């Protein structure tokens, strides 16, 4: 008999705005020691599905309409809250997406870790402590004795996720539900955490439900895969068959959306340098408990950018890649060095002197929810740069704005709407429209697709490629995702801790990286699907 058997599960949410079906007739089962991957985009119901099994969705507004769920013979949907509580953290444990917010910042790590033992096993604190320290060691925490008495804020994201895993496994559960456990982590750390989960799983014969939006990660870890979309099961099967011979249309679309392969090398007749950066350095003053400190975010970076080129800039969080992008545009004034754009030195120019140059260089931001003024209609947002730089007359303004809408693939009818009435992908289109409104020569795109679902991501990437082609744009494309960069860029530049590690043509870097760090980065991000 399967360890977990879910059949015909349907869940709906009843709010003032009406009834939404979150889960519609979902069935799956999981054997002891197996890993089930649940894949879907945001809003697909992949998390709700698992949370509901443990009574972790608020009811009301949530309501389980039908279905059955048995865990080791226990009827989950007809269990009392108390019976479910006995199960949680004891037989079924969970880890979550964001390790920065999932640990209680007010309690010591040890105190949080031993709670499952104390409340489920009636252990005394001394034994619990011993077990916790042993487990901390097992998940790869150095100096577990000290860690036991530390607070979460003293650790990095990767370390906290290790603590979360240790905490989840301390009461020896049979099933681990991992909800996007590596999404918030850097790619090299992600690799380590996935390996850790895999090791622990094998050693303990643990069953795992692995929820993720990332097909590549799921392909790496899961035996069985369940694809969900809009609350419904799309397809289910073994990992191999599902990824090799997807049957459902949606699965194929998902797989096709994964950026694959490289950009065909463009043959440009003339090579013309648009941007020349020399020894660019940006420092921040930080104040910490009254002491002034200095952080060198960008450290003596030099490179050139050719007209019509897309240069990828990759690095992990804290590498200084965003600061570099903003320093080029003088949004963050550089401390020293030189940025020569179309023959003109930009470093040292004040905001006023920058104004004529602003028309020629633009930026696309990461978070489409924050990069649009929520109180302006799309029309106003797009009209603002056009009027400011005198690109069009008042009379032609409307036609011009509508053409921009066409350019970025938005229906003209939406032009009087406000940003909050659009989805993330649509908002990113608006933001792109605003950036290309002034017909710039150079665009810095700072992680423009990392907040988007994979199918939307694909569309936005296509849009960017088209626009680069049409308008002969030069682009600095900042990303943490190597596959995306490879798909889009002519050359790739790797940054780490403010320094430029390596810069080379995409395929050269991909196939024969020279720097050790680049090798680690590449090996971490390669997946079964890559």
């Amino acid at each position, binding site marked *: 008999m399967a360890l977990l058997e879910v059949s015909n599960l349907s869940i709906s949410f009843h709010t003032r705005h009406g009834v939404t079906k979150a889960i519609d007739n979902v069935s799956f089962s999981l054997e002891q020691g197996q890993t089930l991957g649940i894949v879907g985009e945001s809003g697909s119901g992949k998390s709700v599905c698992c949370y509901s099994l443990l009574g972790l969705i608020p009811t009301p507004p949530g309501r389980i309409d039908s279905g059955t769920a048995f865990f080791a013979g226990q009827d989950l949907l007809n269990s009392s809250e108390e019976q479910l509580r006995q199960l949680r953290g004891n037989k079924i444990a969970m880890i979550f997406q964001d390790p920065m917010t999932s640990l*209680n910042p007010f309690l010591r790590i040890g105190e949080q870790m031993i709670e499952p033992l104390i409340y489920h096993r009636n252990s005394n604190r001394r034994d619990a402590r011993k077990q916790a320290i042993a487990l901390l060691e097992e998940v790869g925490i150095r100096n577990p004795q000290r860690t036991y008495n530390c607070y979460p804020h003293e650790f990095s994201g990767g370390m906290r996720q290790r603590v979360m895993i240790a905490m989840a496994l301390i009461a020896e559960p049979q099933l681990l539900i991992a909800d996007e456990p590596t999404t918030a982590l850097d790619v090299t750390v992600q690799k380590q955490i996935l390996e850790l989960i895999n090791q622990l799983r094998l050693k303990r014969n643990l069953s795992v439900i692995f929820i993720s939006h990332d097909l590549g990660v799921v392909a790496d870890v899961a035996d069985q895969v369940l694809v969900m979309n809009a609350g419904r099961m799309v397809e289910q099967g073994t990992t191999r068959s599902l990824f090799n011979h997807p049957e459902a249309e949606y699965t194929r679309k998902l797989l096709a959306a994964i950026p694959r392969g490289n950009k065909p090398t463009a043959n440009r007749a003339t090579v013309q340098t648009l941007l020349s950066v020399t020894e660019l350095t940006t420092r921040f003053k930080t104040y910490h408990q009254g002491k002034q400190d200095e952080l060198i975010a960008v450290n003596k970076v030099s490179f050139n950018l050719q007209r019509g080129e897309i240069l990828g800039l990759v690095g992990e969080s804290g590498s200084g890649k965003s600061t570099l992008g903003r320093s080029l545009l003088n949004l963050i004034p550089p401390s020293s060095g030189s940025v020569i754009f179309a023959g003109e030195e930009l470093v040292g120019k004040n905001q006023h002197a920058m104004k004529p140059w602003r028309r020629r260089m633009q930026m696309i931001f990461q978070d489409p929810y924050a990069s649009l003024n929520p109180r302006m209609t799309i029309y106003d947002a797009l009209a603002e740069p056009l009027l400011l730089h005198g690109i069009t007359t008042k009379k032609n303004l409307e036609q011009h704005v509508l053409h921009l809408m066409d350019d970025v693939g938005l229906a003209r009818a939406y032009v009087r709407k406000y940003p909050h009435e659009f989805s993330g992908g649509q908002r990113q289109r608006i933001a792109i429209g605003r950036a290309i409104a002034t017909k710039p020569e150079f665009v810095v795109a700072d992680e423009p697709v990392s907040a988007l679902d994979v199918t939307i991501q694909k569309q936005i990437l296509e849009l960017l490629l088209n626009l680069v082609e049409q308008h002969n744009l030069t682009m600095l494309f900042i990303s943490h995702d190597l596959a995306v960069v490879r798909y889009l860029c002519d050359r790739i530049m790797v940054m780490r801790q403010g320094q430029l590690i390596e810069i080379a043509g995409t395929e050269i870097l991909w196939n024969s990286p020279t720097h050790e760090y680049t090798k680690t980065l590449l090996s971490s991000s390669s997946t079964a699907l890559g």
Partner: protein
Amino acid sequence: MWRFIGSRLLQAIPVLFIVIALTFFLVRFAPGGPFSTEKAVVPEVKRALEAQYHLDQPLLVQFGSYLSDLARGDFGPSFKYPGRSVNELIAAGIPATAELGFYALIVAVVLGMTAGIVAALSPNTWRDYLPMSSAMIGICMPTFLLGPLLVLIFGLWLEWTPVSGWGEVPGDKILPSLTLGAAYAAYVARLTRSGLLEVLSQDYIRTARAKGLPNFIIVFKHALRGSLIPVVAFLGPAFAGLLSGSFVVETIFQVPGLGRFFVQAAFNRDYTLILGSTVFFAVLIVVFNLLSDVLAAWLNPRLRSGLGDRS
């Protein structure tokens, strides 16, 4: 931690100096002196009186000598109560005011937090609406209205409690403490409720639930601590309000406390007593603000360890 306390103490020095200087010159520049009301005073006597209290010296000299006296903890003699020093007068008022303030604080914290927790645990039900509507009444009902109304209802009509006094008849401390504490209880209740609701929606509470912890532990061990920080931070400034509120309550219920001295001193233009009690209040307020800041920081491990996170 010590650095934090140190820097806060340093910050308190300009505050105190401004308070002293402002009060000193305000009082001196005010029309009418302490001896101008006594019409019968012969000019010579007035001059002699002024000389006795050094009022004939240049202002800055007076200010300097006042400061140096203060540094030695000497508030000077009272103008209106001949032969008594301000220190004595303040010392006489402290016990009643301190006791009243203490009880009011207890009322505020116990009543307020209980109401806030009850409301936050079942939001949008009658267990939320009832305490929160009462809190709203507490906020909209100023001390000087609530006090007389309580006296009217419980003292005069129902005759359950004494009408005024402090420590003379059993039960006469109930109404003043309740009156003074009520508004603060209301604020504490609102802060506790919103703080707790905010914390209960955090990811780490979901983690605690996923660990299968009993509800009681989740609320009191995991959630309450974080939601207490705004409450504790409020209590410092609240104490300042409590003190200034205390002179209304002391007047209404005829409590022989500092507040009454202060109001009388202000009306009498008793320079040294005004100055003394203002400085004394200011010091108390600074100390309590510091205490509540330190306590709030201590509740937050990030600030406590002083390591901080660079991200």
